[in-house]
């Protein structure tokens, strides 16, 4: 067996290994030797061996075979062995290892050792890797040490108690009295430990927090002593007396003063004193000031003190030290919501920090600048933000772009400014914007109707310069397709006039179509735009036809489909081309889906309005009988509907425009009931079967709008429940059903159900309506349909 080398020689040998392989060889030899040594019983070099193993462990090699050796060495009576043994325990054992339990007994014995350095080893190890069980076992010992020992041990016991409380929450109660007593110690180490312990107890248990509020005057006293008293060589750091303790006390005061007026009042003076007297030339002074500012802003301090705190942060912003500027911005970010005006005063400095070299500082400055944007400073702030966007690091681009969009949306002073800003962002950082920017921008542009000419000119120019930014190209194509006629007209109030010929425009769109930089979506936009121009230009329609037919055999399926459909539009449906490709209406943001307002089962989805959306598949040939087509949509062939003799007989059978007499007819059936006051427009009974009657009255609202009121009543002897109405109208008519007044029709017409239907008939087609009636009577579900071909009052 090779003799083991001393630790230092081994380290030298490892370091002189020239390759990884050589190093591994040396380490393997050494580990073998160490393992052999471990197997031997007591010899003088045990601590050296373990130290060597720990070195090897630090280099990243496995060292678990040393765990039992640590346990043995901890139990050894020799101090040198205990020292290394405990160090090994802290490095190799943790609470997840089983071997850690074996040292509990040794720690317990060492805690009551006569030598304080042995005690300190045990305390240190317990605080480093003590598991919950070990903590529970040894907590009473720690408490004993907290009360009666010298200050060297007391300070360690305090931190050990902190670890125990973190592991086992309930034991906090055990240490509270001792912690209180420790506050009257003079030794700074003990005081520090006590403050940490009290902080930990208060953070975990609100009742303990209440109890410790009484200590605020003591803490204030201690703090005053530190701040005012003269030079103390033992604790002085660059002129500040024990900054570590000061910061901890300030933190504890923060926790105690939060949400508590009385405690906050008690510390007001002290905080003001610390804020004004602390020397801020060195980092250490700034550390104390920083903690003071955090405390002032968190407790219920008086306004003068808050202003002082924000001013300190403002001074930090001007500091040469980058760290201090970073800290200042983080703190300002936290209070920008509550003390907005105070932070606004420093806006200039914050905006300057956008130009700082450091990436962390830039990020903080961006967050803060976006938070400070308001209606009054939007123009100047946006200028700065756009400059920042053009030179900012790539990882901040997306955040900056979305922040700018949000700010522009909330505070835009004018639509033209808004559109300009968005265009600017798209040209500088178009690749980093979110996907919903394109539809949002399109919606914005359609809303700004007087700026269409200006917008399309600007976008055209942008398209000519650069077709790589996909979002920008998509929006530009859409606009050119939509407002191409404005572009070709040439003159525009807001920008210099430029002559654009139809060929130029088509050239631009073709470039986008053919460029390999365009994404499939962008090419789709370009193709549709080209198609739309066919109705807006006069001379080059043939050119468009040829472009469209070329793409009929394109590999990209989406483009091919579009091209084929547009080709069909040219060929078979040329008469409809103008209508299909006309200007889009203003798009409403979040337009509510039209529903028929019913909560009942089988709600029929409303027939979508007839306005053809761009790019949609072509309309099927219009059937002669439009309403018949709707039957399919009502879900179910006619056979399933109950044959309703009423259908054929009631419509022609019923008198039209009976006005009040219809109500009178019903009255006879209903007997003694008062007629419900009919709407001013004449009512007409449209359905009558099994005692269920449906009357309809309508009122013209506008040139194309009509309000129809359907009233249902039950003249039979049995009650009707779950009464619902569904309606269908021809495709070009828009239907909106409001919620019915109810869904039950008691017998003998005791109550009626009314439902209002709003119709919009812009194309003035022949108005027809098919109504399906469904209800439950005596447990049986019944359904019926009635067609209304003529409306009274129309």
């Amino acid at each position: 067996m090779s003799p083991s080398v001393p630790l230092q020689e081994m380290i030298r040998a490892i370091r002189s290994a020239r390759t990884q392989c050589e190093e591994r060889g040396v380490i393997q030899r050494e580990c073998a030797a160490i393992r052999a040594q471990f197997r031997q019983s007591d010899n003088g070099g045990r601590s050296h061996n373990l130290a060597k193993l720990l070195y090897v462990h630090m280099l990243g090699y496995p060292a678990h075979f040393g765990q039992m050796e640590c346990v043995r060495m901890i139990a050894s009576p020799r101090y040198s062995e205990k020292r290394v043994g405990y160090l090994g325990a802290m490095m190799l054992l943790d609470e997840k290892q089983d071997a850690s339990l074996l040292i509990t007994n040794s720690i317990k014995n060492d805690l009551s050792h006569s030598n304080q350095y042995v005690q300190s080893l045990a305390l240190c190890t317990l605080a480093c890797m003590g598991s919950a069980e070990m903590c529970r076992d040894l907590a009473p010992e720690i408490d004993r040490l907290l009360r009666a020992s010298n200050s060297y041990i007391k300070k360690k016991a305090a931190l050990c108690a902190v670890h125990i409380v973190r592991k086992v929450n309930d034991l906090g109660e055990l240490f509270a009295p001792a912690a209180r007593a420790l506050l009257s110690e003079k030794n700074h180490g003990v005081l520090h430990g006590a403050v940490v312990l009290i902080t930990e107890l208060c953070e975990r248990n609100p009742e303990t927090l209440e109890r410790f509020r009484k200590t605020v005057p003591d803490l204030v006293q201690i703090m005053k002593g530190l701040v005012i008293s003269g030079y103390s060589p033992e604790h002085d750091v660059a002129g500040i007396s024990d900054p570590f303790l000061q910061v901890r006390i300030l933190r504890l005061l923060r926790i105690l003063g939060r949400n508590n007026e009385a405690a906050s009042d008690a510390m007001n003076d002290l905080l003001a004193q610390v804020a004004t007297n602390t020397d801020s030339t060195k980092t250490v002074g700034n550390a104390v000031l920083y903690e003071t500012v955090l405390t002032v802003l968190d407790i219920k301090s008086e306004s003068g003190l808050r202003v002082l705190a924000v001013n300190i942060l403002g001074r930090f912003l001007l500091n040469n030290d980058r760290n201090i500027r970073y800290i200042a911005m983080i703190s300002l970010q936290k209070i920008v919501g509550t003390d907005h005006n105070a932070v606004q005063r420093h806006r200039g400095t914050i905006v300057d920090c956008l130009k700082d070299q450091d990436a962390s500082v830039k990020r903080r400055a961006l967050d803060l600048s976006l938070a400070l944007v308001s209606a009054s400073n939007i123009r100047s702030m946006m200028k700065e933000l756009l400059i920042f966007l053009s030179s900012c690091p790539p990882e901040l681009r997306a955040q900056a772009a979305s922040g700018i969009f949000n700010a522009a949306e909330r505070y835009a002073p004018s639509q033209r400014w808004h559109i300009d800003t968005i265009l600017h962002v798209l040209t500088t950082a178009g690749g980093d914007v979110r996907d919903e920017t394109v539809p949002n921008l399109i919606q914005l542009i359609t809303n700004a109707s007087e700026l269409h000419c200006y917008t399309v000119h600007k976008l055209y120019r942008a398209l000519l310069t650069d077709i790589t930014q996909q979002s920008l190209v998509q929006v530009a194509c859409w606009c050119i397709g939509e407002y191409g006629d404005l572009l070709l007209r040439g003159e525009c109030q807001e920008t210099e006039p430029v002559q654009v010929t139809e060929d130029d425009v088509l050239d631009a769109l073709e470039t986008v179509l053919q460029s390999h930089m365009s994404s499939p979506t962008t090419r789709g936009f370009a193709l549709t735009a080209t198609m739309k121009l066919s109705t807006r230009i006069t001379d080059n329609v043939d050119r468009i036809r040829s472009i469209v037919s070329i793409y009929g055999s394109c590999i990209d399926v989406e483009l091919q489909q579009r091209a084929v459909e547009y080709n069909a539009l040219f060929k078979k449906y040329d008469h409809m081309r103008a209508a299909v490709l006309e200007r889009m209406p203003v798009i409403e943001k979040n337009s509510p889906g039209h529903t028929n307002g019913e909560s009942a089962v089988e709600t029929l989805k409303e027939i979508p309005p007839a306005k053809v959306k761009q790019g949609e598949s072509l309309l099927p040939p219009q059937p002669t009988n439009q309403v018949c087509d709707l039957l399919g949509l009502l879900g179910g062939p006619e056979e399933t509907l109950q044959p309703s003799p009423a259908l054929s007989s009631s419509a022609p059978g019923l008198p039209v425009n009976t006005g009040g007499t219809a109500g009178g007819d019903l009255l006879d059936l209903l007997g003694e009931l008062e007629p419900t006051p009919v709407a001013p427009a004449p009512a007409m009974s449209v359905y009558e079967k099994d005692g269920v009657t449906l009357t309809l009255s309508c009122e013209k609202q506008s040139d194309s709008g009509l309000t129809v009121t359907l009233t249902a009543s039950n003249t039979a002897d049995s009650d009707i429940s779950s009464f619902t109405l569904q309606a269908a109208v021809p495709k070009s008519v828009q239907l909106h059903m409001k919620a019915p007044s109810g869904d039950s029709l008691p017998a003998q017409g005791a109550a009626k159900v009314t439902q209002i239907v709003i119709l919009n008939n812009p194309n003035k087609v022949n108005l027809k309506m098919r109504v399906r009636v469904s209800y439950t009577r005596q447990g049986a579900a019944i359904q019926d349909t009635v067609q209304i071909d003529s409306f009274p009052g129309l």
Partner: protein
Amino acid sequence: MMRFLLLFSRQGKLRLQKWFTPMTEREKKKIIRDMTSMVLSRQPRSCNFLHWKDLKIIYKRYASLYFCLAIENQENELLALEVIHRYVELLDKYFGNVCELDIIFNFEKAYFILDEFLMGGEIQETSKQTVNRSIEASDMLQETMEEYMSKPAF
């Protein structure tokens, strides 16, 4: 509370690691890799503070060694810089003009000093002299015990 303290060289070799919360070996290795790559890639005159997961990382370079300390979110970063500086001062006093080699060849002493200064993720002693005195006394105890043990008993 401090979560861990790492010392590594410009080449990324680890010289000291102190963990204040229990973690598996795999987690430790991963953290060491992350920290070394993050810190070593920083520009020379940038901010000393980083964000990593939910912790704040404070790092400072002293000659050829990087000191990297991870603290929880509510801690004071500027004070963490002072903690690092205090530890360097303690090492300097003990070794006399400390350099990286001292820490390499006497790593267990560096740990002993650290254990007198920090404990359980918190500062244990705020006075430099007290820490130095404790270390000297412990060393004395170790030597005298060894001498005593190695002397033949009569």
